[in-house]
């Protein structure tokens, strides 16, 4: 039986046919209804390539919401593609060799006092940026030594990649096509999604060189289109016979990053290459160890569990911290699996 992929629309399947106990899956919906209050939620459950459930509350199903930092997992996917295309020799390439502008941020031109480029930053690699262990503009944090979730490091990653393809110019950041052009060509079109993009920035002081470390491209999407991304990741980068993202990259990206395992305490072994990972059971102790997620502010979540052939998107969900999914929605969904 070959893998099922959505066409213009997702095929639908009943919970029983998808291998769920209906009564138990209903508990997941009940949990949402019990906790939503005056809020809103939008949840899509995909199993075996078909939509099993779509639950919307106070939100239109087609509305495109910002993925926020869930977009970082898209950046990771692009990085894997860039390496496979030979534009970078490996993830251990030094960023300075491709985007030297990122290191021209002297004192006073960083995002805030005390934050600017240090000599140690010149050794930062793409792998360290994507695993949030770079220490970029962070005093005292040597590259690869500390897990520090930061957006500036991701921003320069995107600009570096975009510059490799001739898509980013620090002299015209808002006029540059940026990484979103790669996302458009290499991800959105192959999976048949209809998502949009936004360009955001931080509100910083006037001397801050935001053309270098500011500006970030984000994706805005419906929960159904988020599920397309999840299904691409579930199939280890494969979509209808084409290897869109290298499988080896994705398998590595969805495990705790080597620098994090080597240098950080076990309770931080929850982050790979811009994917949140449960491979050491540190993030969701009661959920499968092979599950991972793209996660963003505003309770945006694309959760993938290959062993259960399952993708659950929340746009938004009802959590403040994604770890709450361990006892919340995802726990009920997993328990409903037969």
């Amino acid at each position, binding site marked *: *039986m*070959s893998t099922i992929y959505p066409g213009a629309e997702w095929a639908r399947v009943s919970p029983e046919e998808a*291998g769920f106990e209906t009564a138990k899956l209903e508990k997941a919906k009940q949990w949402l209804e019990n906790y939503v209050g005056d809020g809103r939620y939008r949840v899509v459950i995909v199993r*075996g390539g078909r939509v099993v459930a779509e639950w919307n509350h106070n939100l239109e199903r087609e509305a495109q919401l910002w993925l926020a930092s869930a977009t970082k997992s898209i950046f990771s996917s692009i990085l894997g593609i860039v390496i496979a295309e030979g534009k970078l020799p490996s993830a251990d390439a030094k960023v300075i060799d491709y985007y030297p502008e990122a290191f021209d941020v002297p004192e006073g031109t960083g995002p805030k006092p005390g934050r600017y480029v240090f000599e140690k930053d010149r050794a930062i690699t793409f792998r360290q940026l994507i695993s949030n262990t770079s220490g970029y503009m962070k005093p005292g944090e040597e590259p690869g030594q500390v897990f520090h979730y930061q957006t500036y490091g991701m921003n320069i990653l995107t600009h570096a990649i975009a510059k490799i393809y001739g898509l980013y110019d620090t002299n015209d950041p808002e006029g540059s096509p940026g990484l979103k052009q790669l996302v458009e060509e290499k991800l959105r079109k192959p999976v048949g999604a209809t998502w949009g993009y936004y360009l955001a920035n931080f509100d910083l002081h006037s001397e801050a060189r935001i053309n270098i470390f500011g500006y970030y491209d984000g994706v805005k999407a419906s929960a159904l289109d988020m599920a397309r991304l999840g299904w691409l990741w579930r199939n280890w980068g494969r979509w209808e016979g084409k290897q869109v993202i290298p499988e*080896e990259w994705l*398998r*590595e990206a*969805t*495990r705790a990053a080597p620098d994090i395992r080597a240098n950080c305490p076990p309770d931080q072994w929850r982050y790979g290459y811009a994917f949140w990972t449960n*491979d*050491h*059971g540190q993030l969701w102790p009661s959920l*499968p*160890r*092979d599950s991972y997620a793209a996660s963003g502010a505003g309770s945006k979540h694309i959760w993938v569990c*290959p*062993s*259960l*052939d399952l993708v659950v998107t929340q746009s938004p969900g009802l959590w403040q911290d994604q770890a709450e999914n361990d006892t919340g929605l995802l726990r009920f969904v997993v328990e409903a699996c037969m």
Partner: protein
Amino acid sequence: MTQVTIEGEKFFIDGQPTYAGRIFRGYEIEGLLLNSRMVQATFDDANPETRSMWAYPDTGEWDAERNVREFLAALPIYREHGLLAVTVNFQGGSPQGYSKAQPWINTAFTPDGEFKPAYLERMQQILDRTDELGMVVILGIFYFGQDEHLKDEAAVIRALDNSVNWVLERGYQHVLIEVNNECDVPRYEHPILQPGRVAELIEWVKGITRNGRRLLAGTSYGGGRIPHEPVVRASDFLLVHGNGVSDPNRIAEMVEQTRELPGYHPMPILFNEDDHFDFDKPLNNFMAAVSRGASWGYFDPGLSNYQDGYQCPPVNWGLSTERKQQFFQLVKEMTGR
């Protein structure tokens, strides 16, 4: 280095399908991986109260190094007869053939999931020698009679992680990972080794790479049973057993049913444990599996008499009984050796 790969339902060794072009009694043998269960090759017993049960008749003592040494000496004989794979296991199998209570302690892992050096050394000798002989090793990691010696789930994962990384770091390319023996036997202590979750561990194995290479992985099911969908989806090959299946037609049916499972995509189906023989008959479990394009694996439990079988120490690893001779003779005829 001997390299095993899979293309569709066939095994390849060093880029060539196994038993290339071979037909036997009208059935295609090409691509099969004829194998034998030899899980006690690294056996030892850390329980002083049971250790004497495995004593060699000539010395009156159990000797783990002698055991592996004699196994290594027998490997070329197996290979000469056309056998291409052996199943071994870091936690062995029942040294009484079949057991309920298993007070002996035969595990390569400490309670925390780290390796015991002596076990690793014995397994290394086996992997080195099989590599030289152009054979494949189905490397089992856990056994239901010994998994309780791992203190918790983290230890299970650490043991698996250590095992896979060890194989990759040593550069072995002839190893298939069987996460655990008969995952559906209701005696595994750890839920992650049971059918509902073992697919997570198969994915774990597949997620570890070295220089762009990863190991092929699966797990096995008990006699007469076919895999669950999550395992089918996650696996590179499917391991089933013929224990308790006295009707060869059921063996054929198992193969057909496995191919019909949701999530099945063309991949090898292997029996790597079957305690039925009748090799002198035209229809037996071995032939039934082959007739459906599945590989078959010999499981001869034997007795602890240094003669019968390959599972009860002290094991005579040679062709020391008529049954063993009949099996290897059939393999020889089947493969054209």
